[in-house]
């Protein structure tokens, strides 16, 4: 299971990459593996604001339909429209295939997220 060290993680298997006042969000390798082939992604609207852990989008695979929760509060600055036509990118390269960029609402939210190490341990507990 690939878990890059430079990202922060949620227990819903999203990642966030922080750059100054913005964060890039996506789903983890664990998430894409367990969802199976992803067939549809519903992206948030640019300009919409969300609280931490609000559902901002929907990911549909052959097995399930799940919500995408934002790891941190903020306003959507940009979405990865390429995923609308090529949802399989989330399976192929989950850490390159970002879903949205948000302007962070409250940087304290980041304190509540897991480091790569903590997330790896968390995933291990799910497998046991």
């Amino acid at each position, binding site marked *: 299971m690939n878990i890059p060290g430079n990202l922060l993680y949620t227990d819903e298997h999203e990642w966030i990459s922080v750059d100054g006042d913005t964060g890039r969000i996506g789903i983890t390798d664990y998430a894409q593996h*367990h969802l199976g*082939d992803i*067939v*549809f992604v519903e992206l948030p609207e640019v300009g919409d604001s969300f609280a931490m852990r609000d559902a901002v989008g929907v990911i549909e695979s*052959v*097995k*399930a339909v*799940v919500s995408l929760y934002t790891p941190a509060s903020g306003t959507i600055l940009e979405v990865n429209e390429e995923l609308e036509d090529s949802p399989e990118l989330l399976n192929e390269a989950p850490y390159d295939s970002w879903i949205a960029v948000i302007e962070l609402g409250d940087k304290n939210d980041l304190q509540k997220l897991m480091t790569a190490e903590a997330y790896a341990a968390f995933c291990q507990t799910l497998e046991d």
Partner: protein
Amino acid sequence: MPKLIFEKHVTNSNPFSLPACDIPLPEISETIPAHFLRNETTALPEVSEVETVRHFTELSTRAYGVDSGFYPLGSCTMKYNPKINEWAARLPGFAGIHPCQSQDTVQGALQLYYEMQEMLAEINGMDAFSLQPAAGAHGEMTGIMMIKAYHQHRKDYKRTKIMVPDSAHGTNPATANVIGYEIIEIKSNERGLVDLEDLRAKMNDEVAGLMLTNPNTLGLFEEEIQDIAAIVHDGGGLLYYDGANLNGILGVARPGDMGFDVVHVNLHKTFGTPHGGGGPGSGPVGVKSKLIDFLPKPVVVKNEDVYSFNNDLPLSIGKVKNFYGNFGVIVKAYTYIKSLGAEGIKEACQHAVLNANYLRHQLRDDFNIPIDRLCKHEFVINSKKQSAYGVTTLDIAKRLIDYGYHPPTIYFPLIISEAMMIEPTETESKERLHEFVDVMKTIARESAQETDKLLNAPQNAVIKRVDEVTAARKPIVKWEAP
């Protein structure tokens, strides 16, 4: 792949002629405005009568229902539909009446309707029932509309949220969303039941109610239902019962006694009427007395020995179905209840629970059972033991097709990874259950020793393994003429 009827088109192959019309007909352009008239011909296929019959007869042989074989579709209660129900629904006094007939000419039908309202109320421990909703999700919608009407009538406008457990059927959050509620998800604990701490933390004066299935989608009885009801009621909310799994407690326990305020039942699951393509369904909704005023109108009432529709319900949420619901289905379910009787209904439930627990014990050596304790009418296994061979639950399901079984529900509930839900129902014999167990054990052995048989399944079916990924990513939903 078999050809579509469109692909069987042969020009001039269906030269039928209608007898000359013996009344004068106006020109079509005189009766229909020009902008509604089509100038080109329709693209309907021309196929001779015998080829048309063959086409649809061939398709009909591919249908699989509980009359063809075992159908352990978890969460769907695919029980046998006794044929006496069909006899009753076809009686001329039921089949030949019209919903616009005057009430004094359909007293028998109204009596059955009234008695069905009363029987469902008794079975569920509720005070009144509406038989209008056309199926389960429609029943849910009706129930949540009544919950909303109840709060608004009390001028309690703060309640904008509905709580739903993470093990719930997808229709629960979908229904609440359609009625305009925000969804709050309640977590399950390690025993597969509602986490009371999470429920307590999320219950407040913005919550209109909790939608709950009991037994839940893991087939487990929510043992703390009275505490759950107290938390919701103390917070001013109402408790909604999703009747999908009523078969697990039917005749033994009643939602009304557990504290539920609104209930929907699926006649097509629990009460032996056809399900799925054989429907239609029927999803009656029951309420406690405090919600009676909000029931859809009309309801059937009895005065002395005369039955009539009562439309005088000023607080009613209104009509939710044209006329009075799927009446033929109501006749079938009425027949089911009357032919089993109170004791028979209880026994059916007990056999459903016994069959599920028996299968669970028979399968536990070969398959992982994430929550392996006494269940009600269904239980959940997964493919954890088979995953080392690269076998998924999907592969197991596909292989079951090769052995002539309809695969159970898979990848649901979402809280169990690689889930497969097995619900045998009460109508299967011990011999049939053992045949299924033997097949499942064979599949477990094949997983380790002949993995390809699973990965390439089904091989014995008309249609082999379909490419579900491409079908979902690039669906072709319309036939185009070449």
